[in-house]
């Protein structure tokens, strides 16, 4: 397999030549730019070297290093080009803000993630799963519902969110409603797809046993659908989070991540805005990672989960 060709050979001559050329070109344009390009190139070569290793440590180190590089570049760029902090604060300021505003950030996470996003996620994915099973027996319903469902799924949330706020009030309920709408159809489509995923031969086997509908569902079709269901569950994690945050832009109590972001921009507290964004990214990644982990445990048998 090509993947097994050793990539970890020492950095080739041509790579170094390229890097030096890029650096010189940048230096001709601007000194600060040259510094940034220089940092980038050095970091990238280190990263290539790290990524060449197969250990568990290297697996963690490569993305971390990459992230750190981006942060350093960001910090440098802000200082070198004197970017006003009301436009883009440096990572150090954001970190400082996160350290001092932990209480606010946590309260916002509770409001937006635990109340809004998670409730909506569970309700939306749950009903989608049940709906998929319900319409699974009827090709008529599937043919009718799925195109219409795709159409509904294409409704932009920015249009739906104000309507939900109007219907379900300002609290987390309206945010959960937005999340339900956002996650429902991706989940439905994936589950319906998954319920079809068992192979004809596997279904024929059940037929030869004269298995009942429910036996076939629980012993064959749901297990076979798991990879698809998890695909849906994974996609919808980020959707749920974004949905809950965005919905808060259109009316909310005076807390929540979306609330904080939108009001803090108005107050030019950009460090707090970015602190919230960082929290959102971290929470989103954890959420995604948790579902992916569960997927690994429950669909261990699927080829994509084996090396």
């Amino acid at each position, binding site marked *: *397999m*090509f993947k097994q060709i050793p*990539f*970890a050979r020492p950095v080739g001559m041509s790579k170094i030549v390229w890097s030096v050329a890029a650096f010189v070109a940048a230096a001709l344009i601007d000194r600060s730019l040259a510094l940034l390009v220089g940092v980038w190139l050095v970091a990238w070569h280190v*990263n*290539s070297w*790290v*990524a*060449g290793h197969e250990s568990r440590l290297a*697996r963690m180190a*490569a*993305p971390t*290093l*990459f*992230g750190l590089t*981006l942060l350093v570049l960001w910090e440098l760029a802000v200082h070198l080009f004197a970017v006003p902090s009301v*436009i*883009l604060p440096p990572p150090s300021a954001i970190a400082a803000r996160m350290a001092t505003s932990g209480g606010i950030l946590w309260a916002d996470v509770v409001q937006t993630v635990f109340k809004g996003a998670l409730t909506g996620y569970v309700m939306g994915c749950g009903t989608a799963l049940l709906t998929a099973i319900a319409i699974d027996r009827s090709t*008529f*319903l*599937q*043919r*009718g*519902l799925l195109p*219409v469902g*795709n*159409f509904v799924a*294409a*409704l*932009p*949330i*920015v*249009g*739906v969110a*104000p*309507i939900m706020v*109007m*219907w379900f009030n300002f609290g987390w309920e309206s945010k959960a409603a937005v999340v339900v709408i956002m996650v429902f159809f991706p989940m439905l489509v994936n589950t319906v797809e998954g319920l079809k995923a068992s192979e004809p031969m596997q279904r024929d086997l059940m037929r030869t046993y004269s298995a009942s509908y429910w036996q076939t569902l629980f012993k064959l079709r749901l297990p076979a659908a798991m990879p698809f269901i998890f695909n849906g569950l994974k996609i919808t994690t*980020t959707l749920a*989070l*974004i949905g809950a*945050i*965005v919905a808060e*832009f*259109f009316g909310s109590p005076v807390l929540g991540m*979306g609330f904080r*972001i*939108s009001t803090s*921009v108005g107050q030019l507290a950009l460090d707090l*805005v970015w602190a*919230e*964004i960082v929290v*959102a*990214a*971290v*929470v*989103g*990644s954890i*959420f*995604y990672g948790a579902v992916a982990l569960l997927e690994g445990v429950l669909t261990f048998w699927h080829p994509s989960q084996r090396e």
Partner: protein
Amino acid sequence: MRNLGPVLTVVAVILVIWYVAAVGLNAAWARDQAARAGTELGFSELVGQTLSQSRPKLPAPHQVAAEIWQSTWVEETQGRRGLIKSGSLSQRSLVYHAWLTLSATMVGFAIGTGAGVLLAVGIVYNRAMDKSVMPWAIASQTIPILAIAPMIIVVLNSIGISGLLPKAIISAYLSFFPVVVGMVKGLRSPDAMQLDLLRTYSAGPAQAFWKLRLPASMPYFFASLKVGVAASLVGAIVGELPVQQGGLGARLLAGSYYGQTAQIWAALFAAAALAAVLVGIVGAVQKRTLTRMGMAR
């Protein structure tokens, strides 16, 4: 076309539910108004009232339909600024706004797809990129775009870029991710034996790309294009919210700002229809291409 019957049935059912919901949701206001006027509402009056409010909680389907008709055909043919009278599309017509959104979507989609494919190739062919970029690409999608869209616009503005491009960039930001994920999966989809075959021919990486990885990735490519084009549209709309310079996004928000519920719903439907058309076009191209490649069955 065999879907037509079922779709119409489902649509009919939805319309019924919609009407019932409209009566239910709008009843409170109708009763309120009656109470203020000191009158009592009979059932038929109540129904009549709820289906004809000027700023209903939920506009009835016929109100939305009327608004769509009004803000497309009627505005263009009869409006003072319409196509017939002024020679150009009217600012008040959904056609004009849909066109604005569409152009930003197309540019953004092109940028996003291009970037996504390049990134995917990098991830598949470069181990360092594979290891370090993917987790950050996932993290990038957990950032609420609506939150940073205004900042992107302000920053781009400050270096003199405005108009279509900022919207297109936001649109690209949303569409590159599905393309990256799909293409990485697709470029890696050839099984060990297919790769081994090329090794026995001693084919180089470029030949492996053009003769195996790229063709093998086509089904994944198109599947992600479908998601990507819809995401592009959402991106363009999000990019239109802060700069109220037209487009379906601006239209949505303006409708919301002035409490024009029917206008919101009309814009919503225009957006969804646009998405459906775009996805349909990608689907048609997909079908043609895959058929030509012998991969559609």
